[in-house]
């Protein structure tokens, strides 16, 4: 179906099942270890050999020679393939780095060989016998050093032809004349997804047909990527990924495990399974680029912003995209004079690409700290300052309204529920034993992106429904909300619905990325359900227009027939998808959040402990408050990481991320995370989709790090503009211990 006008009343609005706190239908499998992840598929094909990846130990240069003699002679080894034996693989769409093939090394730990052996232990041992001779070349690894030469660059989210510069009014003159102004630079580090399941794939060939069991957020992208890199028709590739151990953007794209498993399986003539060993993932895979962001705010004494300037510099491999860290700044606050754009520097680190809330996450770390600073300069409460500068239209185009925007309600509700009125605006004023205590807040915005998504639903003789779509559940709850959608539309309990995901043989979905998955994949299923309702009505001789599907029955006029009756002569199938028109051009569609945090800072050591957190989220209709809440608390947790600990340390000599494992790259653990509260506002968005939902997976991260950072400042009076706020950055300036 084409979705071109705002949705009217529809069967989802009954909210008998959608919107209810249904626990995960895949929960019993996950808590018992019976949900099968990619590397565990002993069941799918016999005779799997083990592949072990060898990564380059230089960041830039050429491979002169690879000696595989010792490896090939080692115990259990079936075969060794090296990058020198293949042409460089053409990068799939939206990707930059060459995954395998050729002599050029473009980044550290680029895959250069795969050793295939009978056992994992043999493959691993033999991998250490592969000897690679390099001719290293100098590379560029320091964003700060390259920033002056960075080139203005279009926002990749706005398309290749988008305007590079977002200029409104006369920024320079207005900023010069602003009575109150701020001009500060903020930095965010490179970050890594660190999902718990490493990239992993099993590949098997049957003639020229390839099947890959992998861990991918985007089945269709994996399929297209394999076809392109292998140079085979897409219809010859089958990809399956029913369970994914986290992704956060790291598994949006084809990675070396899948390609090498396919090449290895071809070379040795038997199925091969490959996982990227954890210490390889961070340099081999993608990461979120560091940013250097200059923000200039000008305001009248009453607190109204007159100017907003935001320029963000990030780095990537030549040909790569910038981290779009200024997107939210174009839409979050009103101001008549604006200058906002991105710059991109070429670096020789691994590929920078999407990580959860790409752009907004680091962009809001800077913008919302700047807003906190500006509020203090103006002597206005930070919540009130944001409310004062709210906008209900696109600042670039006052005719273009937001579909639904309830940021002010988020802010007021949050302030009330968090006890914001107890915050002392004077930093360093609140003591609790050895702790100095502070509160901080920030606002968040993340676009509601719309992607086409298709599904198929079948009604069987026994009255059961089966949903098939290549949608993935990366922990988001897709299995559950799709079952709820089907159950609501067809008038059956959730237990009557089976959901089959992550198979490229199914209709192509939006996949899991950009927080579009829940809204668009359920909308695609909604369309398929409308088709099935039509088929059921026709089979039963009912009028589809007024047929009501409820309680396992179909009612029309004075007739009421069990749903299963429609399939008694054979299954009925509905297949369709949702295709979005231009409603996202006519309206700005976005989710909003107000984030609040309270921290304690150890007055002796500077250690920061988060004490309380609250998010108030406006994301349209919440399809399932259980899974939606989990996405938000998970994102809040990731935001604590960004604020206080997460940073990839770059070795400027060797051009690699030094802390390339889960020991060196610190993410929040249980001890770091207090109880978290989430409040969802109830504002269904009929302009977004027939589900009236919006994106939720990323808005939960938006603003969190800044809220924590602002709380640290409120505690200490020391403003650290260089994330993460580790204790050595403020220790020497902490208030004197009384």
């Amino acid at each position, binding site marked *: 179906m084409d979705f071109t006008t705002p949705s009217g009343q529809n069967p989802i609005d009954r909210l008998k099942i959608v919107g209810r706190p249904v626990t995960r239908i895949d929960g019993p499998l996950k808590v*018992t270890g019976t949900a099968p992840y990619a590397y565990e598929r002993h069941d799918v094909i016999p005779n799997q050999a083990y592949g072990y990846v060898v990564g380059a130990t230089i960041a830039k240069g050429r491979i002169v020679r690879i000696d595989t003699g010792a490896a090939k002679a080692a115990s259990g080894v079936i075969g060794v393939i090296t990058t020198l034996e293949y042409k460089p693989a053409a990068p799939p769409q939206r990707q930059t780095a060459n995954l395998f093939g050729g002599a050029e090394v473009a980044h550290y730990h680029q895959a250069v060989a795969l050793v295939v052996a009978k056992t994992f232990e043999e493959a691993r041992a033999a991998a250490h016998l592969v000897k690679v001779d390099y001719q290293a070349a100098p590379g560029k690894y320091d964003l700060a050093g390259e920033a002056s030469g960075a080139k203005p660059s279009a926002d990749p989210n706005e398309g290749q032809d988008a305007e590079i510069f977002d200029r409104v009014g006369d920024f320079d003159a207005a900023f010069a004349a602003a009575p109150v102004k701020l001009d500060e630079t903020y930095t965010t580090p490179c970050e890594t*997804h*660190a999902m*718990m399941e*490493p990239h992993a794939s099993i590949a098997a060939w049957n003639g020229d047909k390839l099947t890959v069991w992998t861990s991918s957020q985007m089945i269709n992208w994996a399929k297209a990527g394999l076809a392109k890199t292998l140079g085979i028709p897409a219809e010859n590739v089958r990809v399956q990924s029913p369970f994914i151990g986290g992704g956060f953007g790291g598994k949006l794209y084809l990675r070396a495990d899948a390609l090498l498993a396919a090449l290895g399986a071809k070379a040795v003539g038997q199925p091969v399974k490959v996982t990227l060993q954890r210490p390889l993932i961070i340099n081999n895979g993608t990461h979120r680029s560091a940013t250097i962001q200059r923000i200039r705010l000008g305001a009248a004494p009453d607190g109204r912003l007159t100017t907003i300037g935001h320029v963000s510099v990030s780095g990537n491999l030549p040909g790569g995209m910038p981290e779009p860290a200024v997107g939210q700044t174009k839409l979050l606050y009103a101001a008549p004079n604006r200058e906002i754009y991105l710059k991109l520097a070429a670096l020789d680190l691994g590929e920078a690409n999407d990580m959860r809330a790409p752009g907004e996450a680091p962009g809001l770390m800077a913008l919302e700290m700047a807003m906190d600073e500006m509020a203090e300069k103006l002597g206005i409460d930070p919540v009130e300052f944001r409310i004062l500068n709210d906008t209900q239209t696109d600042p670039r185009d006052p005719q273009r309204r937001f579909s639904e925007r309830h940021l002010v309600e988020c802010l007021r509700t949050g302030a009330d529920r968090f006890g914001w009125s107890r915050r002392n605006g004077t930093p360093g004023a609140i003591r609790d034993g050895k702790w100095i205590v502070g509160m901080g807040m920030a606002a968040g915005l993340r676009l509601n992106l719309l992607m086409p998504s298709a599904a198929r639903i079948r009604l069987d003789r026994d009255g059961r429904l089966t949903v098939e779509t290549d949608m993935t559940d990366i922990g988001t709850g897709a299995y559950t909300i799709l079952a709820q959608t089907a159950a609501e539309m067809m008038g059956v309990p959730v237990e009557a619905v089976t959901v089959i995901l992550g198979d490229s043989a199914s209709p192509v979905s939006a996949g899991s990325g950009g927080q579009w998955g829940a809204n668009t994949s359920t909308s695609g299923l909604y369309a398929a359900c409308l088709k099935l309702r039509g088929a059921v009505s026709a089979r039963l001789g009912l009028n589809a227009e007024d047929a009501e599907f409820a309680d396992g029955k179909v009612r029309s006029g004075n007739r009421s027939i069990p749903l299963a009756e429609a399939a008694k002569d054979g299954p009925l199938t509905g297949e369709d998808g949702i295709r979005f028109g231009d409603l996202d051009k006519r309206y700005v569609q976005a989710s909003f959040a107000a984030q609040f945090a309270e921290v304690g800072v150890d007055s002796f050591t500077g250690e920061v402990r988060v004490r309380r957190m609250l998010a108030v989220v406006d994301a349209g209709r919440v399809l399932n408050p*259980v899974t939606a809440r989990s996405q938000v608390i998970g994102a809040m947790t990731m935001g604590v990481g960004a604020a206080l600990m997460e940073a990839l340390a770059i070795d400027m000599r060797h051009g690699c991320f030094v802390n390339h494992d889960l020991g060196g790259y610190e993410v*929040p653990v249980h*001890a770091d995370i207090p109880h978290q509260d989430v409040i969802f506002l109830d504002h269904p968005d009929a302009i977004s989709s027939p589900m009236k939902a919006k994106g939720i997976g990323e808005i939960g991260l938006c603003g969190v790090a800044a809220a924590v950072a602002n709380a640290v400042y409120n505690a200490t009076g020391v403003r650290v503009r260089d994330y993460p706020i580790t204790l050595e950055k403020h220790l020497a300036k902490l208030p004197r211990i009384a």
Partner: protein
Amino acid sequence: MNTPDWELSRREFVVGAAASSVIVATPFLGPAHAAGGTPPHAAVPMMKVTMEVNGSPRSVTLDPRTSLLDTLREHLRLTGTKKGCDHGHCGACTVLVNGTRINACLSLAVMHEGDKVTTVEGIGTPDALHPMQAAFIKHDGFQCGYCTPGQICSAVAVLKEIEKGVPSHVTEDLAAPMRLSNPELRERMSGNICRCGAYSNIAAAITEVAGA
């Protein structure tokens, strides 16, 4: 791993720690090829190990380099135990050995002759959930599910540690009866990373089971 639970004395711990530092100080020998020459194409000598896994005796003949984790996942095909890092950093591979939780990736299978190993599959099944598993579902103590078996094994073990009075880094009064305060729970569970960030829900699940 036949040591009875929690009998490691402070003295033994100090000795062990000193031994570790010696290992750290030993020069790294580098990869085998640095020594030159091609190793003989000899088959790896295999070793047999017998363990009791989830109540059943299991014998496997293994490359002695095989970790307990890979033995479970690749040889016994008990894939509930997860490999997140293979380095003892993440806790996804947590299993119970003779009732004590360990990271199965940091332990070779041949060290476990005669040991009783419990994996998540031995804790409960989809049709017969352990109360901890049911509480994780009820409180949505997971998202992607990959750290979940390790979290559940750890959580079950934590409650036993509290019962036995085993202290932790944050225990304030070693003489007082042990109880599962929120800081105790969070400290003890901190070896199990959840990147989806379900910590707050996991804490709620464990607290509910502890109070039952």
